[in-house]
């Protein structure tokens, strides 16, 4: 089935986004939520990687190959690098919030941490 095959990375990206959202909705532990957010984020990696890939293209490093050789897209890789940093950073910040919330209220369940209702 060539058509499904040619869309595979995009379907995987959609699936990971869905997984992340599902995890966030059904989470019972704040650390679990944070990890689900990281999974949701990895959907964008796969999407960008799938977009920039080219069959037969080499990595865009011209140390050993002549300039002008067919390569995969370097721009999406630069975007992905930014994305990786953003992921690490968001996780670090959210974890700090979770740790602090645990220290202040002794719970890590989103169900018990609901002082802001209404």
């Amino acid at each position, binding site marked *: 089935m060539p058509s499904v095959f040619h869309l595979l990375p995009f379907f995987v*990206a959609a699936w990971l986004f869905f997984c992340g959202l599902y995890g966030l909705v059904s989470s019972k532990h704040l650390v679990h939520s944070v990890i689900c957010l990281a999974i*949701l984020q990895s*959907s964008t990696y796969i999407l960008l990687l799938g977009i920039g890939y080219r069959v037969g293209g080499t990595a865009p490093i011209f140390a050993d190959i002549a300039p002008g050789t067919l390569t995969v897209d370097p721009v999406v890789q630069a*975007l992905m690098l930014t994305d990786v940093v953003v992921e690490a950073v968001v996780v670090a*910040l*959210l974890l700090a*919030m979770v740790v602090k*919330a645990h220290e202040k209220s002794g719970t890590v369940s989103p169900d018990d941490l*609901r*002082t802001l209702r209404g």
Partner: protein
Amino acid sequence: MTAPSSLTPLPVAVPMLGAALMACLRKWLNRAAMDAMGILVAALTLTVSCLLLAKVIHAPSVYWFGNWSPRGPIVLGISFVADPISAGLAVLASTLTLLSLIFSWRLVDSGSNHFQPLMLIFLAAMCGFSLTLDIFNLFVFFELMSTAAFALCGLKTAEPAPLQGSFNFAVTNTIAAFLVLTGIALLYSITGALNMAQIGLAIGIRHDPLVLFAFTLLTCGFLTKGAVVPFHFWLPDAHAVAPTPVCVLFSGLMVQLGLVAVARLRFVVFAQTFAAHEGRLRAILLSLGLMTILVGGVMCYSEHHLKRMLAFSTICHAGMMLLAIALGGPLAFAAMLVYLLGHAFIKGGLFLTSGILLHRLRAIGERSLFAKGKDLKWTAALWFSGALGLAAAPPFLLMTGEAGISKTAEEMGKAWIPWLFMVGGGLTSAAVLRVGMHTFFGWGTEPITDEAAQIGELPETANEDQRIFWYQFAPAALCIAIPIVLAVMPGWLSILREASTIFTQQSAMAQLVYGNAMTTRPPGWSASLISAAVRGSAAFLAAILLALTSIFRMKLRRALRVGAFLESGLHPLRVLQSGHPGDYVLWLTFGLAMIGTANLILLRS
């Protein structure tokens, strides 16, 4: 073509450098020195932004970072667009930051001197977000703005509520950021470009499911920042827990920048795509705006926690600005910016005043403030002027903006929009009036209250001195005064109108990017202020009546207790605001699915 103004990167670079320097010296400087430095850097940013604005006021230009100007049709580098609108937003951002930093001088808890550098980074991010014309750079500044906002929101770590508020805020806005990034990736794959004007030209009139879905993702991402129903849940939680000076920036500009980004998408990136479906796109955005105004207005009136109340009023007004963007066209967009400007200062003034109340009276719930502020004459004056401003009554700037939006609406045969503005303005104004009459006059019986207002908010200022200082009062007074001054000197409106002609035209933007000669049409600002003044005053009068029915509810017959009913009778709507991150993500998914389906069905054919 004029030479690109070399000042363009400074509104971003100056606060960034300042923040890095201050973070370096954090351990060695005392509070006053840090505050002074923060104020100095913010003032410097304001100066360079003003210089930039003055320079580009008649000659918008595009600035290429690293000197990478486009090669033929292909844009290589990142560009900032220096037009009066973007530079003006930078000026607004630095003014609000400066006022907030002055307000927090030595009194608001600074979290061991982390507060000032974070505020400066927030400022840099807002300036960058307004100026950039590169869609991935927009994402980077979106994320920088969010990161600084999450941190600032959790400043008061002494209680669990702030952490919960900032957690909800962080989760929803991070999802929004990845929606935006996914949209960017999809657009990149079909256009191979990241510059908005280039993307716009490359998409052309294409509107297959892919383009529609990318549009859905990008708009939903930015509408989450813009707190449009059903993406708005994070906003009241974040505002309830953030320190007052931070609330000023959140409500004054951060939320509205999300809407400005939607405008950029609509006018620059997807301009030709929806040219044939203009009416249907308008219908989708209008219905979102309508829902936002109603939910925001009603919830605003039913809140009793001052900051949450003001936060819902921001949602209501964000809905009004979305209406203006939905209408489209240069006049409506210029009017939206006028509205944004007026709203930013009025809302900033109201937040600062509530901060003064929190400092002086040590409470933020309506019931605990009841009749406590009888001797605070000047604070009361500010509060009631703010209420007048929110109703878009004369002499405030919101009236001018409302006039422009209503004129466009009437030209398009949507006569219900001015009425909707009156409803939204009236409801938010009535809520502010109700609190004012309770607090400063002590009228009526003890106010109704609710669960959320009962959380004792720890005062954010040090305990020993409860006087109101001039540096707390002056920023609030300035915030109320500026929209009046701007409204009585309408000379700048024609410049804004001219700039918005460029902003709302894809071809004009593309000409700027590719360095061709500009042709601007003679501008005109001809919206009838008199009918707007009448509408605004009527809304304000209605608001007074509504507030009075709430205050004297015990003396009224049951049928006349409209205000009391609005205050406590809307339980189902309040239940949705559950404070559970899972619920908020669910509603985000709901909005995404609905808007995506609507776009696909209505804009496809």
